C-alpha cells in the first residue's frame, strides 16, 4: 500500500460542471481500482492525496500529472504506508451553487471536512494540513 500527495494549478478555473465531471469520473474509477483519498480545490489551486496499490496509483499519478486540465504538478510525498487512512475517495471544494452538490456522494464543503486522520504518519499529516491550508485557506481550517 502506497500513498501519493501532490499539488497543482488548474490551467483555467474549474467551473461547477468541470468539478462535477471530475467528481463523477474519479469516484467511479477510483472505486473500481480501490483508490481512496481526498482532493482539495479552490480558486484554481488543487491538492490531492491518493492511496492504493503501487501498481495502481503509480500509473494513475502519471496519468493525472499529464492531464491537460492542470499544470505545475508538484509531488510532495510518495511512499509506502502501513494502512489506508481514508475509507473512500472524496473531494472538498466551494461550488458556486452549493445546493445542487449538497446531496452528491463523495462531495464535501470545506467546513465539513473531518480533521486529518490520526492514522497518517505525522510528517504526512503535516503535509496534508499544509496543502489543505494552502488550497482552502486558514479560515476553513480554524472553523473545524
Amino acid at each position, binding site marked *: 500500500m502506497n500513498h501519493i500527495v501532490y499539488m497543482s494549478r488548474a490551467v483555467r478555473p474549474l467551473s461547477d460542471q468541470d468539478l462535477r465531471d471530475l467528481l463523477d469520473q474519479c469516484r467511479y474509477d477510483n472505486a473500481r481500482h480501490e483508490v481512496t483519498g481526498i482532493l482539495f480545490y479552490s480558486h484554481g489551486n488543487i491538492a490531492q492525496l491518493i492511496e492504493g496499490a503501487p501498481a495502481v496509483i503509480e500509473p494513475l499519478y502519471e496519468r493525472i500529472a499529464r492531464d491537460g486540465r492542470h499544470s505545475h504538478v508538484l509531488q*510532495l510525498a510518495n511512499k509506502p504506508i502501513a494502512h489506508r487512512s481514508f475509507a473512500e475517495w472524496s473531494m472538498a471544494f466551494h461550488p458556486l451553487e452549493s445546493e445542487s452538490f449538497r446531496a452528491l456522494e463523495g462531495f464535501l464543503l470545506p467546513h465539513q471536512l473531518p480533521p486529518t486522520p490520526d492514522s497518517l504518519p*505525522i*510528517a504526512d*499529516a*503535516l*503535509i496534508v*494540513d*499544509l496543502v489543505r*491550508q494552502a488550497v482552502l485557506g486558514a479560515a476553513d481550517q480554524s472553523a473545524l
Partner: protein
Amino acid sequence: MREQQLQHILRHMPAGIGTLLGPELRIGFLNEAMRNLLGGALPADEPLAVHAGPLTPDLLEVMQQVYLAGRPYVAKAYPLLLSGPAQAEPNRHYFDLTLEPLHDEKEQPLGLLVFAVDVTTQEEARQRAHELALETRRLDARLRVLTETAPLITFSLNADGQFEYVSPQWYYFTGQPPTADLNVIWPLLIHPDDRLRVLYQSEAARTTGVGWNYEYRLRRHDGQYCWMLSQALPELHAPNKPVFWHGAVTEVHDQRELAEALRRGEAELRFLADSIPQLIWTASTIGFIEYYNKHTAEYTGRSGQELGPTGWIALLAPAEQAAAARRWVQCVATGQEFEGLYQMRRHDGQYRWHIIRARQLTDSNGPRWFGACTDVDDQHRLREVLQTQYDELARTNRDLDTFVYTASHDLKQPLFNLRGLFDELRRTATFHDSEQAALLTMVDEALSQLDGTLQELAATVQDQRELAAPTEELDLRSVTEEVLLGLRAQVQESQATIDLDIAAAPTLLYGRANLRSVLHNLISNAIKFAHPERASHVVVRSLVADSGQPVLVVQDNGLGMRVNAETEPMFHTFERQHPRIAGAGVGLYLVQRIINSRGGHLSVSSAPQRGTTFTVHWFE
C-alpha cells in the same frame, strides 16, 4: 502561287497586320488577328476613324501624323480595351504597335502599314515586377528604419568575417566616428578578458557554418564595459555554404549584473549555511521545506531527500510532534515567528534539546521561511543538573532542620527526667563536703544550659520554617512591646531600661514572626550580656538610612566584645562570645540568617567593657 502563299501566311500571323490607304486612312487589308483586335471584319475602303473600335482618338491622331510625316513610329506596350467574346468586361491588352508609312514608286505617300504584337503577358509581368520592386523598396525602407532605431546593434558579416554592414547604433554606443574601420576597431573595444574567447567563438562558428550566441563586455563611449549578447545566423545560398552572417548585439548588462548578484547572493548564503555547524533550512511560503544545509544531513543522518518537505517533525520527541506541527501550520497561516524548545533526534538516536526558530522573510522570490535549530542540550543538561543539585540541597536542609527539631524535642524528655532525678537526689541526699555542694550547683547549671540550647535549637528550626512567611506592613512599636512582654522576667531581673526611638521609621514591611525573632534575640542578648557593674540600658532605634532603606539599631551598655574589623562578622551556630554566660550562640546566627534570606545584612560595632551596637540593614 507565291502571292497566294504570302497572303495565307499574312492572314494567319499571330500578330495583327493591316493596311490603311490614303490620307483618310481607309481600311485596306486586315489579317485575322487585326480583325480580332478591331472587333470584327470591317468594311473595306471606309475610313478607319469611322470604325475606330477600341482605338483611341489619340492613336488615330498619331496615325495621321505618321502618314503625313512619312516617318515610322513604334508605340511600345500600348494599352487597348478589347471587348471579350461573351460581351463580358472589356479586357485590357497591351500591344507593341508599329506604324510604317507606305510609299509608291515615286515616294508619294500611299498609306500606313499597321503591325500589332500582343505583349500583354510580358507587360503584365513587367508591371508586376515593378510593383514588387516598389514593395521591396518600401519594405526595405521600413526595415532600415527598424534596424536603425531599435535599441540594438545589427550587423552583417561576409564569409571572410569582414563587416558588410553595421547599424548606426554601433556608432552611438561606442562613440566611434563613422569613418572608423569596423574590422580593426570592433575587436579592440571588446574587454581584454573576453576578446580571445569572442574572436575564437565567432571564427569557429564561421568555419563550421553555424550561428552563434554569446555574451561579452563591450566598451561604451564613456569607457565603461557593458555586457552584450551577440547572436547571429548564417545566410546559406547553397547548402552548407554560408555567404553572410546576420546578427544583433543587445545590451544585457543590467540583467546580467542582477542575475549575477542574485546567484552570488544565493551562493554565498548557501555557502554560509553549509559551513555553519547548525541546522539551517528554508521553506516555501506555504510551509514546505525546500532546502536543508549540509550539517542537517550530518546531524540527523538523513538527506534532505529522505526528510522531505515536512520530515523534520518526525525527528522531534514523539510527545512534542503534534503540538509542534499545529504551531507550524498556524505560523504559516499568520506569518508569525516560530520558536520553541524541542527535543530532536540525532543520527545516533539520542534526543537532544534544540531551540527551533523560523521567520518569514520576503526576498525577490516572494516570502520564504528561514529557520535554524540550535543544539542547546549541553546548556539544558547543565541547568537540569544544577536544578537537581539545588533541589537536593534544599531537601537536605529541610531534613537537617527536621532532624534538629526532632532531636531537640526528643532530648527534652530525658533532660526533664534527668532534672527530676537530680532534684530528687538533692532533696534526699545530704552532702557534707562543701566542694560536693559546689559540684551540685555545677550540675544544676549544666542542666539549665542544656535546656536552653535545646530550646534555641527548636526555635531556630521553627523560625527557619517561617522565613518564607508573607510580608505585611508592621507597626514596630506594637511588635516590640509584644516581644518585651515575653522578656518581662529577664527585664525585671536585670532591672534594665529599654528605650524605644522609632519615630523616624515607625513601620516596616516584613514577616511578622521574623521581625519578632530579630527583636527578641537582639534585645535578650543585650540584657544577657549586661555589665555587672552598671544597670543595663538598651536603646532600640528605627530610622531610614542614607540609602533610603529602613534600618534597626539595638544598642547596649553591656560587656561588649572584640570585633574583627577586617572581616564581616559572621555568627555561626553555637559560637559563643562569652563562655560564662548562658546561651548557645544560636540567637545571632538565627538573626543573621533571617535578615540575609530577606535580602539584608547585619552589622555590629562593639568595644569591650563599653557596650555593643547591632545594626540591622533590612534591605540592601
